[in-house]
């Protein structure tokens, strides 16, 4: 296992930057997740590390070696593909043995190492099957065993769970994470699923349009998003468009005046982001310094442990409050007049409205 160092890598196709100036160091044994919508450059970044795409500029180091211009077969990376890419004409055992054969590992050693890898992913009993005789989850685990068996310097995962059903996905997440910890692997995973990213990562990198928007822990990204994009992509939030009116007040387009703690001065259009779980709902106005806005419950979604209450506060704006579904907690129903309230620190303000500039 080794550290992965990406220094200012870019990939340009004509005038279009698929990835622009990506600089990051993944620590030895760290589980890093690249998160972003499709087309944000996360897969391109992963493929540059694997060697399938050559960066236009910048360099990639794996441990102490500069691997920027090495072909894929000379890099010691283990890649798990989204569609698993198991060799259909080879058995499970032969699939897993392939990487060892290529490394000229003696035959006597291949057998035990393949068996060990398959045991790790709990597939020791299926060695003679062909890939098409396996379920999606089993294929996924074979792909994982195949990528691990030759002890790669870094494990690369390209949306490895997107073809599994929801229940299985949750199990495999935990399995991959445990395996990675047990073996002390450096791992880089690409996903567009924020829940997956949040549950698996040591550290996340949010990407958009080829650029790194923010890198940090789950808590940093969720509680201190760097911009409007990150706030919207990680976790759920209510956005209100408007502008700052000085003295810590935000004026929304719908006419709300909201007290907030903004650290930077933003001129012109701005967006206020409000996490639903920081918003309370009450029948009477909240007192004190809190923001309190009257409104009418328009919609309630029942999520089991939680309730999402959508409150219309004026004809342009709606605020979502997420409340615990517990006995004794005030749970309004549709059409009820309520007050939503939150502390000034609960909201973040960013420049721009995310709409096309007028």
């Amino acid at each position, binding site marked *: 296992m080794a550290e992965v160092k990406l220094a200012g890598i870019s990939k340009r196709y004509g005038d279009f930057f698929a990835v622009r100036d990506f600089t990051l160091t993944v620590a030895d044994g760290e589980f890093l997740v690249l998160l972003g919508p499709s087309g944000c450059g996360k897969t391109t970044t992963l493929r540059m590390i694997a060697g399938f795409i050559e960066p236009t500029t910048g360099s990639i180091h794996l441990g102490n070696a500069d691997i920027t211009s090495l*072909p894929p*077969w000379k890099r010691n990376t283990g890649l798990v*593909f989204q*569609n698993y890419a198991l060799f259909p*004409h080879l058995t499970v055992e032969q699939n897993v043995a*392939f990487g060892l054969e*290529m490394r000229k590992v003696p035959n006597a050693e291949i057998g035990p190492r393949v068996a060990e890898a398959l045991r790790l992913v709990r597939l020791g009993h299926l060695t003679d099957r062909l890939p098409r005789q396996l379920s999606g989850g089993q294929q996924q685990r074979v792909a994982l065993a195949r990528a691990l068996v030759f002890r790669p310097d870094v494990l690369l995962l390209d949306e490895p769970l997107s073809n599994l059903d929801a229940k299985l996905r949750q199990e495999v997440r935990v399995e991959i994470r445990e395996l990675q910890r047990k073996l002390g692997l450096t791992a880089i995973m690409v996903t567009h699923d924020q829940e997956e990213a949040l549950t698996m990562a040591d550290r996340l990198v949010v990407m958009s349009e080829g650029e790194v928007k923010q890198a940090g822990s789950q808590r940093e990204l969720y509680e201190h998003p760097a911009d409007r994009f990150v706030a919207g992509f990680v976790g759920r939030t209510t956005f209100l468009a408007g502008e700052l009116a000085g003295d810590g007040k935000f004026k929304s387009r719908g006419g709300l005046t909201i007290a907030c703690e903004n650290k930077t001065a933003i001129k012109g259009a701005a967006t206020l982001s409000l996490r639903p779980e920081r918003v309370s709902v009450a029948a009477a106005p909240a007192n004190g310094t809190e923001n309190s806005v009257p409104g009418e419950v328009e919609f309630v979604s029942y999520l089991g442990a939680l309730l999402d209450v959508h409150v219309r506060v004026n004809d342009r704006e709606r605020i979502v409050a997420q409340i615990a579904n517990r006995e004794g907690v005030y749970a309004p129903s549709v059409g009820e007049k309520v007050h939503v309230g939150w502390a000034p620190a609960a909201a973040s303000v960013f420049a721009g409205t995310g709409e096309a500039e007028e």
Partner: protein
Amino acid sequence: MNLGRAILDKRRLGRYLLNGVAGFTLLYILTPLIFVTWLSFFSQTIPSFPPEGYSLKWYAAIIENDRFVSGFILSLQLALISSTIGLIVGVPAALCIARYRFRGREALNNLLLLPLVIPGIVLGIALYVFHVETEINTGLPILGSLLGLVSGHVLIVIPWTVRLVTASLAGFNRTLEEAAQNLGADRWTTFRRITLPGILPGIVAAAMFSFVSSFGNLELSLFLVGPGRTTLPIAILQYLEWKIDPTIAAVSVVQIGLIAAAMLITDRYVKIARVV
């Protein structure tokens, strides 16, 4: 309920119609084959109905006829050599066309498929004239030689190879190649261990189609054979000019049998329905 029944009836009617059309088409295709086979067992010399009796003598007559035997051997040789050369040329060509973007790619593709569209007679005459001119100008004894015949047949098998191999490459998942390279296989090893097994069905099908189209070819061979060198289809034609006894039917049955065997054997490894 009535509506449900109406839909069911409609569906059943549709199925009957489909089966009817399919059955008729099959019969239309098979009738000549059935008659030829039947005819080959008639005992009388001039075929007429009803048969006077049955006999295997026409099959014996094939073996006694030198022209049929040598024609059969030549056609077999020709088909094997041409299909092999066709694969050696066609597989790399298909790889280039399917994998790389280069100037003239589309043109090359069309050029390689062209022999399929040009009538065999035209191709035969063109090659004949070419061979005559070549021999006059260089003195090489190409006219009527085995080499000349093979070069002509290679031309008619290449379109099959290119088409079938290109089709199987298009259906091949290239991520598998990336997976192999990620696991440490260089380009050549990746091709040998992963790509080749993946497109093998297409290659087998290409070999079979090449064999069949070369083995049964008449119109091109007519212009390229030399004295004492006759393919089976030409031997049949020449025999037919003088006689119409059931020997012809017997030869045809042998030929049909050989091709059918090739098809059936291939189908065991590659479902023909999948590649055509």
